[in-house]
Structure formats: structure tokens, C-alpha cells
């Protein structure tokens, strides 16, 4: 029997439209690539800025004179000179600002005679003046004695002295910020009291006591300062010029050319650690970003505290109680559109409403005697409120959707058990929609944490050494200005006096901002998944 031709042979119809599948796949691929590229760039550049490279020494022939330069290669570039000839150049960071003026230098590759990596070169971090690169010679003590760099326990002594200096600086800070600050505050209050209700023997006595205390503190302060400036580290730069650095200003000494891979990893971790926990220095281009991390996290959390209840309550009314009609529809459309308003507009509103109006009223009522504005100036509270306003549409929309997604059966079951409408919402509907609500809060947090433009109007500053939460009463200072990572990036990249030196910090801070947003989102997602497991509704 001859085989019957199959009736199911392809006519090509099944492949119709397949190019569109490729089109959609390509669209996704581009999206994924862009995201991966962005993250990859930020992560590599960010981590690179912490990586301790080797210090190189170049002998450069500059029109006959031989110059020795030590430092790191920052970048390579091609330059076309006036006469049309091409030059390959490298940009070198050589530090030692007080010797050379410029910390960066361009060198023509063709002029380089010789490159070395001597082991004894040290990289010295200090409080002011930027990095120093050179050979450590000795420590000159205040009593005229010298500890030679060749002596066997030199390194141990140096480390010891640096640690002692750090302790002294802490003491100094405690005296200056805390104790003298408290003293001055009390003096101010007493003087005001004197002015308002006349003097009394107690006030005079107290003022005298405070003055004595201040004199003591001042003496201590001067003493510590002198101690900090007493000893000097003598360093010789690569071209033989001496540098004398007060030991009290040193932060860290590292010899990058004598350690191996794991030593470098260790140094990198140390740098990351100090980046995370120390205050900025040198107009933010050095040191850490701790106040900015703190400001960002606190502001985002406070914002969530405001935005969550506000958005959820609004959404409950809108979805559950309001009579659905043209008015509610109009409100809903407006809320959705609010999410698309440029954020700077919210900044302007925050400035006008929260700071000038609400802050003004608060100052008039509660701080009538204060000479400077307390709440009538930018602060973390107003910034959080402004961002809460900015993100409330996100929470409202998400909550409404979550409420609408709660199956009718669950509501009816609650009502059939004799629950009032509010009881049904409170005990059954809200818990069931909690995961959806949290999704909205997560989105709001992600948006709020990355927002910069409105913050610049309502409380973010370049440098705010006093954190909004600290050990001085009343511990929470909602009126204080604060630092923010997003603004910090902008400030480093575009407002810095030395934008070349700030470049690595820009990437490091960007990496950190992304990490913080990811961490905050992840923790919210974990909480949401827990709740989802707890309040999972069956499929009906």
C-alpha cells in the first residue's frame, strides 16, 4: 500500500510572524545589555577607585633636563600638537600638592626614558593637603630626638604614633564639639534669661563657673593641638625635596609596591571601610561619605513613615468608601498624573509651603526667641515630607490595585461573619493586600532615595558635619540640614574645585548609592515575601 502523504505537512503558516518574535527578543536584549552595561561600568569604576595600584617612577626627558616623577597613571590619551604631530600622553597623579602645585601631570610617552617600581615608596594619607608620595626618612620628635627610618622598630613606632594622634583628635573633637558647644549653649541661654527677667546671683554664679570651665577646656584644647603638631614625619619626594608632615595629621601610611595580591585586597577593604565610616575631607574629594549615607537612609525611612500611612488611608477611602463617579475618577486621574510632575516642582512647593509657611508658623509659635530660623530653613523633616508628597501617588495607585485584587469572596466571608465594613477592611482586606501595598512602598522608596533635584531646595547641603540624629539632646534634630548621596555625586562631579581628583569618588559614591537602594529594596522585598506567605489568599 503506498504511503499516504501526510495531511499535516507544514504550509509555512505556522512560521508567519516569527520575525516579530525576534524583534521583541532584540528589544529585550538591548534593555538587558544597557542595564548590565550601566551596572558593570559603575561597579568596575567604583571598585577601581578603591584598588591600590602600584606607584611607578618615570624618568622623563623634558627638553634636555631629566625629571623624575612618581605616581599613578590615571588615563592615557592622544593629543595632536600645534605642528600636527601626534603625541601619546599619560596623565599621572603625583600628589604632593604643596611641592608641585598641580596634583596631576601630563607626560608625553615619547619622552619617558625609564620606568621603575621601587619598593620603598610610601603613600601617605593625611587630613589636609591631599596624598603624599615619597620615601619616609625619619620622625623628628618635639624634644629634638630623631627616630631614623632605618631603625628596626620604626614602622611599629610610626603606627603607634598615628594611632595616638587619632585618639587625640577624638579627644579634641569631644572637647570642641561637645563640651565647649554645651558650655556655649548654656551661656547663651543664661544671657537670654538675664536679658528677659533681670540678673540674679545664681545666674551670675553659674556664668562664672561656666567661664572657668571654658577656660579649662580651652587650655586643654590648646595643649592637645600643640601635641598634635609636635612630632613631624620627614619624607623625601622622588626628586629629592624634603617634606615635613605633622604626625598629628597623618591618617594612614601604605607602601603599595611591597605588598602582594592579598595585601592589596586588604588595603582595598580598608579603603572601602574608611570610605563608609569616615567624614569627607578636602571639599568632599577625599575621606568618606558617612554623613551622606546616614542622611540618605534616614531621609528615605522618614519619608516611608510619612508616605505609607498617608497613601494607604487615601487609597482606602478612594477605593472602599468614596462613591464611584466622575469626581472620584477625576481625583484618580489627578493622582496618577501627579506621579509625572517634574520633581523640581515638588521642591519648589516644599520650599514655599513647608519651609516658608509651615516652618515660619512653627518658628513663630515655638521658637519666638531664636535669632536664626530653626524650622524656617531647609531640613531633613521638610525634605522627607517633600519626597513623601512626590511619592504618594505611587503608594496610592499600588494600594488601590492591591485592594481591588482582594477576592470578593474574602470580603463577603468577613461580612457574613458579622463584621462591619471597617472591620472587614481592617482585619481581612488590608492584611490580604499588604504585599501589594508594600510593593508600592518599595517603588516609592526607590524613587525617593534617588531623587536629588527637589532636595537641593529643601535641605540638602554640600557639607553637614552634624548628623540629624546624634547624642546631643533632643537626639533627633528634624530641622538640621543633611547630606545626601545623590547630591554628593552631583557636588563631586560638577561643583568640586578639583574635579579631576573627585572623579574616582564620583564612581565610588554612585556604586554606594545603587547598593543602598538595592539593599533597602531587598529588605522590603523580603518583608513582603514573608507577609505574602503569611497572608496568601487562595485562588478564588
Amino acid at each position: 500500500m503506498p504511503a499516504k502523504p501526510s495531511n499535516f505537512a507544514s504550509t509555512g503558516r505556522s512560521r508567519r510572524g516569527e520575525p516579530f518574535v525576534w524583534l521583541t527578543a532584540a528589544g529585550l536584549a538591548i534593555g538587558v545589555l544597557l542595564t548590565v552595561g550601566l551596572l558593570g561600568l559603575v561597579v568596575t569604576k567604583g571598585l577601581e577607585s578603591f584598588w591600590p595600584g602600584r606607584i611607578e617612577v618615570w624618568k622623563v626627558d623634558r627638553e634636555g633636563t631629566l625629571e623624575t616623577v612618581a605616581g599613578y597613571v590615571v588615563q592615557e590619551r592622544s593629543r595632536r600638537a600645534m605642528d600636527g604631530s601626534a603625541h601619546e600622553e599619560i596623565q599621572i597623579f603625583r600628589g604632593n600638592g604643596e611641592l608641585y602645585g598641580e596634583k596631576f601631570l601630563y607626560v608625553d610617552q615619547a619622552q619617558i626614558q625609564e620606568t621603575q617600581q621601587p619598593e620603598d615608596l610610601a603613600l601617605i594619607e593625611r587630613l589636609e593637603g591631599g596624598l603624599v608620595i615619597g620615601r619616609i626618612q625619619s620622625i623628628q620628635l618635639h624634644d629634638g630626638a630623631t627616630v631614623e627610618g632605618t631603625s628596626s622598630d620604626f614602622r611599629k613606632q610610626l603606627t603607634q604614633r598615628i594611632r595616638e594622634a587619632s585618639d587625640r583628635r577624638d579627644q579634641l573633637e569631644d572637647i570642641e564639639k561637645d563640651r565647649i558647644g554645651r558650655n556655649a549653649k548654656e551661656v547663651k541661654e543664661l544671657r537670654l534669661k538675664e536679658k528677659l527677667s533681670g540678673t540674679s546671683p545664681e545666674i551670675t554664679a553659674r556664668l562664672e563657673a561656666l567661664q572657668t570651665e571654658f577656660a579649662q577646656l580651652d587650655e586643654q584644647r590648646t595643649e592637645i593641638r600643640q601635641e598634635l603638631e609636635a612630632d613631624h614625619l620627614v619624607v623625601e619626594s622622588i626628586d629629592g625635596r624634603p617634606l615635613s608632615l605633622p604626625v598629628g595629621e597623618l591618617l594612614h601610611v601604605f607602601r603599595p609596591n611591597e605588598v602582594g595580591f592579598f595585601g592589596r585586597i586588604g588595603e582595598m577593604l580598608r579603603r572601602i571601610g574608611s570610605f563608609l565610616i569616615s567624614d569627607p575631607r578636602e571639599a568632599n574629594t577625599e575621606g568618606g561619605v558617612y554623613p551622606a549615607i546616614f542622611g540618605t537612609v534616614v531621609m528615605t525611612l522618614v519619608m516611608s513613615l510619612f508616605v505609607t500611612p498617608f497613601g494607604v488611608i487615601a487609597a482606602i477611602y478612594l477605593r472602599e468608601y468614596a462613591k464611584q463617579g466622575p469626581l472620584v475618577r477625576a481625583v484618580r486621574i489627578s493622582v496618577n498624573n501627579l506621579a509625572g510632575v517634574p520633581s523640581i516642582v515638588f521642591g519648589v512647593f516644599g520650599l514655599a509651603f513647608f519651609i516658608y509657611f509651615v516652618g515660619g508658623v512653627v518658628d513663630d509659635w515655638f521658637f519666638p526667641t531664636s535669632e536664626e530660623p530653626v524650622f524656617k530653613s531647609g531640613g531633613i523633616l521638610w525634605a522627607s515630607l517633600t519626597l513623601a508628597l512626590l511619592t504618594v501617588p505611587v503608594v496610592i495607585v499600588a494600594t488601590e490595585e492591591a485592594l481591588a485584587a482582594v477576592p470578593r469572596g474574602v470580603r463577603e466571608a468577613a461580612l457574613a461573619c458579622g463584621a462591619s465594613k471597617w472591620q472587614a477592611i481592617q482585619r481581612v482586606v488590608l492584611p490580604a493586600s499588604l504585599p501589594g501595598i508594600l510593593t508600592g512602598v518599595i517603588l516609592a522608596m526607590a524613587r525617593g532615595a534617588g531623587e536629588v533635584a527637589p532636595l537641593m531646595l529643601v535641605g540638602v547641603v554640600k557639607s553637614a558635619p552634624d548628623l540629624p540624629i546624634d547624642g546631643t539632646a533632643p537626639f533627633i534634630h528634624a530641622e538640621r540640614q543633611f547630606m545626601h548621596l545623590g547630591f554628593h555625586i552631583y557636588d563631586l562631579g560638577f561643583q568640586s574645585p578639583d574635579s579631576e581628583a573627585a572623579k574616582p569618588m564620583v564612581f565610588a559614591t554612585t556604586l554606594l548609592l545603587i547598593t543602598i537602594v538595592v539593599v533597602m529594596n531587598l529588605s522590603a522585598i523580603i518583608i513582603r515575601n514573608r507577609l505574602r506567605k503569611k497572608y496568601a489568599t487562595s485562588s478564588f
Partner: protein
Amino acid sequence: MNASSSNDSNSRPSAISVENVDFCYGKSRALKGISLEVTRNEIVAFIGPSGCGKSTLLRCFNRMNDLVPGARVTQGTIHIEGVEIHSPEVDPVELRRRVGMVFQKSNPFPRSIYENVAYGPRLAGTSEKGALDSIVEKALRGAALWDEVKDRLGESAFGLSGGQQQRLCIARTIAVKPEIVLMDEPCSALDPVATAKVEELILELKREFTIVIVTHNMQQATRISDRTAFFYLGELVEFDETGRIFSNPRRQETEDYVTGRFG
């Protein structure tokens, strides 16, 4: 059995009394001039093709239709235990406490088994642990579920099988101690074994409660109900003892439906 129970049902007081009720969803009329009487401690089955209004009528008894925008009784009265339920002094929340409801699909709350049953009593103000414990145990025993779940009261209700979930919903309903239990196709999502268990339970519950059950399952109606009402296109076609409806109905439509000629 059916005959005897319906005999003394005439002497028993009325639990639900419906007089000439019209019901509209917006402009469309879902119930037309319905009148019927349910006496205490009997099981009444509502049968009829989809969209005939049987569920609508059931949901009138605990004013569940209040939740549907535009739905309302346009004419007639419904008395439950002698009280007109649409009069302004009736609080629907109080009404629902006395007229419980079990739904087509089991809908336990996303909580523990214990919390599901304790939900109603808690709302009613019982918060003392010992009192709650005994209410929960009694309700679960009443719903023939106690032996199966007594060791895992703290576990999620979603861990139960479909039939157990439905019996949990019944326990949740009777924990509030209603007088009337409304059941809207309680077995339609269950397998035959679970259905048999729930039916057995319904017959048990008859001793304490008045039960109105909507069902699409003719055998179920014959197995458990004392009287059956047949609805068609929003009208009550026939309401009589179950035996009579299924063996010797007065109206042609009823006979056609119960014998499976349409519907």
C-alpha cells in the same frame, strides 16, 4: 422522613417569610413577586437553572446584596424571625450575625484554622482565651472537623483540603451562633466524598439551625432537603415538599427541569 418533617413544619413558627418580593439589579428585574415561607429547623433547597434568581433571593436574607451597587428590593417584604429586615432600625451587621452564610467556593481567611473560627466571636466581643477556645472547639465539632484538625489549629487554613476548607467555613459560620444558615451551592467545588461529608453535616445542623441551600445538584436536594423551591426566570414556579417536587410536581416546567429535559 420528608413528609413527617414537613407535617410538623406547619405547626412550627416561621423563620423566613417572603411576601411578594421584587428585586432589581439596576433596571433588570431579577425576582418577580416571590412569596414563600421557611419554618424553623427545616432544610429548604432552592433549585433552578442558572440566572433564575435563587442565589439573589438567598443573598437578600442577610442583605448581602447591599454590597452590589444598584441592587435593591423594589417591592414586597422579607421578615426574618418576625422582623422586617429592610426597616431602618435593622443593622445589617447584626442581621448577618443571626443569618450566617456559606459560600460556593470555600473562602477561609489567610489565617490559622483557629483564627478563622474565632473571627466571628472576636468581632462579637469575645476576647477571653478560654471562652474562645471552647467556642472554637464546639464549632469545629459541630462542623465534624475537630478530630481532623485538633492537632494543628495554629496552621494555615490553606493547608486543608477543599472539603475540609468548606467545613471550616461552616464552622466559622456556626461559631457566630446564627439562627439561620444560608448555603450557596456549598458542594459545587467538592468531590463526591467531601460532598457526602458536608451533606451529612448539613443534616446534623438541622437540629440547631434553619437552613436554606441553593443547589444545582438534584440528588443533593432530594437527599437533604425537607422542602424544595423551583425558580425559573426570576419567578417561584413551585414550592412544595421535596418528595412531591421530584416525583409528582404540579407544574410542567418543574417536571421538565427535575427530569433533565431542560436547564
